């Protein structure tokens, strides 16, 4: 049995990272030049890591499946990035951001990691401003802040509704600078299909050139995965169409442990599903909850009439509306954390108060805010979001309330990493959304951008040198090693197998089916019976996929269906692990709501006695994977029932 070593330095919480930084091993500049690092993914985590490692003098190769590193899905993050600057003087501090992160994650994350995240958050803002990120400002010329869910202070920095875009473009600029300086080499339009392990250490990758179809081998002294989340398991999500789990799934199958796969965040404010042909869901930023009020009719009859379009939203008078978040959670109101807001919406809709043609929607209403602040100010704050909403739905949110419903958005689970962000495979790192480390069972809004950039700019560059210091005598790794040949052959065989099935159903057919199983049985709320049902259905789906999928075209050409097929094959396997994890966790915490475990008023009921651990899974060929627990120790915060009332 593997014993997990979290490598957390001893000593007081606020000194751990300083202590680590001043004692970790360093690599001299002339040795850095001899060391190669592969980074997979060009989102906030990947781009910032590659740029910083390039600046430090390592030889970096970076890979993305898109045509340009600037397309990575971090670009779509709207609302903002948290930092403990306390510029508004409203009582914020590193301790408070740390506390909010642990509490928001429902006491299922590591204290030391969350503290470090809060600690480096301020450097991120300084750096981004220096890089030219046009954050929102006050008339004084100083930076503006707004509030996000799960916080009682305003600590979110933003650039209109395009914060992710601006941060990513800044990281992409830093990356571009290293590319032209020849410290980083870019490989675009590549899918990374396997990780190569030599003598127990990560030494390279196998990639498919998506334009030519060629299978390629790349070697390095260390490999960094920054591949984002696996929300596309659900088919419909706010992820990009190409977002996938293949690199982390390959790592898992090569022995890296996978932590908390069941922890999937369902974002409360997305545009509701319209029809069967729908390919993706669009998020409406959480920042809208600063000014928008969420409600449904207080009477079922009114809800029914709204669904049948016999009534319009504003036909319902104030006293016949139920602002259910304000009613249930007076202290936080519309700004409760995401998991709480999502479940409350589901509760109302399941009880028959939902609106929209499907009954699976609630109102997000700006009428009061427009009255209070004026249309112009609302337009300045949220203009692009309103425009996006109108384009998709054909309705004008200045005149009629928005309709929203929860949708799959972010995955807190991911590869298990220690304090150094290294997986259980030496030399293999996981940063950003693809690791599990900082958000516990629920991530707070505006914390994903913070974590991606913290990992890439300020954490990994230190921790990787602690490993690289032992690699200075390792010569350039050859891709002629038998381990590379074996991985290369395996990938080729896998692709050959997929394309030669020549069945009757398209990849999308299976992906949609997978999504439905997961949303119905392992979605916003879960129970033992449903999860067991999913465990029956998923192996059948896997079997059907591998015997009946139809992939047109050839291997050695641009073949988007083949790309999708390889991704969906991995999603089906990962889905099973998610269900297993949801089944073993017999408690409700954060986004993981088990119907069997709730308080009398319907809140998540945690069980710290039995489940204060990270559920980590070890691949076991085709047998059931082993569950290995990392017990969570709370030395500085005493876990209590989360209350936002």
């Amino acid at each position: 049995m593997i014993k997990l070593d979290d490598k957390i330095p001893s000593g007081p919480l606020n000194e751990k990272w300083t202590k680590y930084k001043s004692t970790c091993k360093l690599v001299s500049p002339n040795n850095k030049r001899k060391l190669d690092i592969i980074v997979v993914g060009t989102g906030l985590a990947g781009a910032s890591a590659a740029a910083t490692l390039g600046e430090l003098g390592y030889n970096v190769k970076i890979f993305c499946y898109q045509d340009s590193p600037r397309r990575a899905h971090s670009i779509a993050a709207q609302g903002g990035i948290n930092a403990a600057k306390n510029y508004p003087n409203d009582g914020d501090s590193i301790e408070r951001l740390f506390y909010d992160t642990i509490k928001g994650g429902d006491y299922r994350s590591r204290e030391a990691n969350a503290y470090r995240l809060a600690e480096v958050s301020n450097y991120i803002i300084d750096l981004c401003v220096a890089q030219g990120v046009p954050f929102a400002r006050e008339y004084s010329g100083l930076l503006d802040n707004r509030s996000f869910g799960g916080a009682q202070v305003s600590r979110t920095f933003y650039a209109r509704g395009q914060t992710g875009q601006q941060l990513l473009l800044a990281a992409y600029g830093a990356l571009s600078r290293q590319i032209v300086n020849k410290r980083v080499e870019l490989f675009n339009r590549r899918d990374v299909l396997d990780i190569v392990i030599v003598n127990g250490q990560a030494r390279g990758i196998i990639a498919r050139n998506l334009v030519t179809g060629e299978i390629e081998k790349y070697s390095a002294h260390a490999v960094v995965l920054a591949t984002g989340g696996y929300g596309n398991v659900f088919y419909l999500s706010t992820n990009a169409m190409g977002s996938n789990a293949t690199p982390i799934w390959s790592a898992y199958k090569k022995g890296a442990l996978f932590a908390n796969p069941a922890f999937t965040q369902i974002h409360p404010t997305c545009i509701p599903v319209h029809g069967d042909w729908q390919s993706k869901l669009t998020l409406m930023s959480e920042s809208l909850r600063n000014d928008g009020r969420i409600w449904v009719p207080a009477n079922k009859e009114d809800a029914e009439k709204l669904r049948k379009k016999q009534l319009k939203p504003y036909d319902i008078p104030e006293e016949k509306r139920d602002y259910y978040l304000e009613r249930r959670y007076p202290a936080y109101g519309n700004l409760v954390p995401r998991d709480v807001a999502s479940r409350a919406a589901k509760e109302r809709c399941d009880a028959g108060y939902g609106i929209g043609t499907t009954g699976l929607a609630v109102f997000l209403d700006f009428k009061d805010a427009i009255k209070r602040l004026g249309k112009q100010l609302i337009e300045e704050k949220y203009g692009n979001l309103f425009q996006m909403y109108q384009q998709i739905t054909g309705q004008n949110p200045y005149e009629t309330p928005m309709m929203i419903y929860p949708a799959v958005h972010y995955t807190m689970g991911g590869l298990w990493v220690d304090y150094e962000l290294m997986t259980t495979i030496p030399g293999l790192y996981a940063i950003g959304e693809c690791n599990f480390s900082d958000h516990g069972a629920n991530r707070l809004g505006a914390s994903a951008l913070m974590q991606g950039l913290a990992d890439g700019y300020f954490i990994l560059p230190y921790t990787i040198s602690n490993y690289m210091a032992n690699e200075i005598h390792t010569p350039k790794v050859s891709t002629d090693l038998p381990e590379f040949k074996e991985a290369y052959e395996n990938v080729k065989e896998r692709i050959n197998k997929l394309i030669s099935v020549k069945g009757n159903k398209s990849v999308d057919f299976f992906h949609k089916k997978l999504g439905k199983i997961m949303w119905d049985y392992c979605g916003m709320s879960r129970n033992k019976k449903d999860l067991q049902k999913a465990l029956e259905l998923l192996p059948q789906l896997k079997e059907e996929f591998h015997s009946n999928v139809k992939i047109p075209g050839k291997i050695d050409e641009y073949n988007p269906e083949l790309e999708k097929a390889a991704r969906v094959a991995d999603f089906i396997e990962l889905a099973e692990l998610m269900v297993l994890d949801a089944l073993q966790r017999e408690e409700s915490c954060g986004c993981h709501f088990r119907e069997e475990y709730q308080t009398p008023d319907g809140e998540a009921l945690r069980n710290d006695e039995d489940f204060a651990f990270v559920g980590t899974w070890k691949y076991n060929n085709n047998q059931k994977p082993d569950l290995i627990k990392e017990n969570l120790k709370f030395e500085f915060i005493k876990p209590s029932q989360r209350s936002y009332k």
Partner: protein
Amino acid sequence: MNLTLKIWRQKNSKDKGKLVTYKVTNVSPDSSFFEMLDVLNQNLIEKGEDPVAFDHDCREGICGMCSLYINGRPHGPVKGITTCQLHMRSFKDGDTIYIEPWRAKPFPVIKDLIVDRSALDKIIQAGGYISVNSGGVPDANAIPIPKHKAEMAMDAASCIGCGACVAACANASAMLFVGAKVSHLALLPQGQVEASIRVKKMVSKMDELGFGNCSNMYACEAECPKNIKVTNIARMNRHFIASKLFAEDKNITNTNF
């Protein structure tokens, strides 16, 4: 809705390519343009034909990966949006829609509707950034920036790098793309330090890659999905001329930054 589609099919960069006619039926007006193409592709796969290849990723109008001339216009008929945000309610039942890849010499076709836009990355690599390393920077509030300047910088920084400006331009000029980046950075005090070197490097890279010049037709502004203004081109030209004019800036070329 029932539609006739005339779609450019081209096997690879060497193939000559041609327009092929397809019919799609029962399209929901609430579906997006790409969802309509998804339906077409599912039908093609069922029939054992090669589906139409097109670039797309976020499908929410921000990643800049999608492209397409739709009835001759980059990103289709609706102003201020990308193709992925275009919905079928913008068309009428019975319409014939022409769908083609972007045509510009620096954007060679890879397959069907997919073109290679790495030339835009190369222009950014030439200098579209502020040369700071990760660390050793002043506090974020150390330098106040007038709100209107920050807003103008943000307007320019909204560019998604899709290349619609190049596709719209008769000269295949990338002036709006380059002007947006030059303006975004030159409007901020942090970006002013390198402003004159930056503009020279980016403009010369743009010329080198075969993009044409601007002849003030403003088609780029009209087709830009993010409504980037041509005033950014004017600002770039001003900086460019200034960088050639003053002796202290004149001799700074090709510094590796």
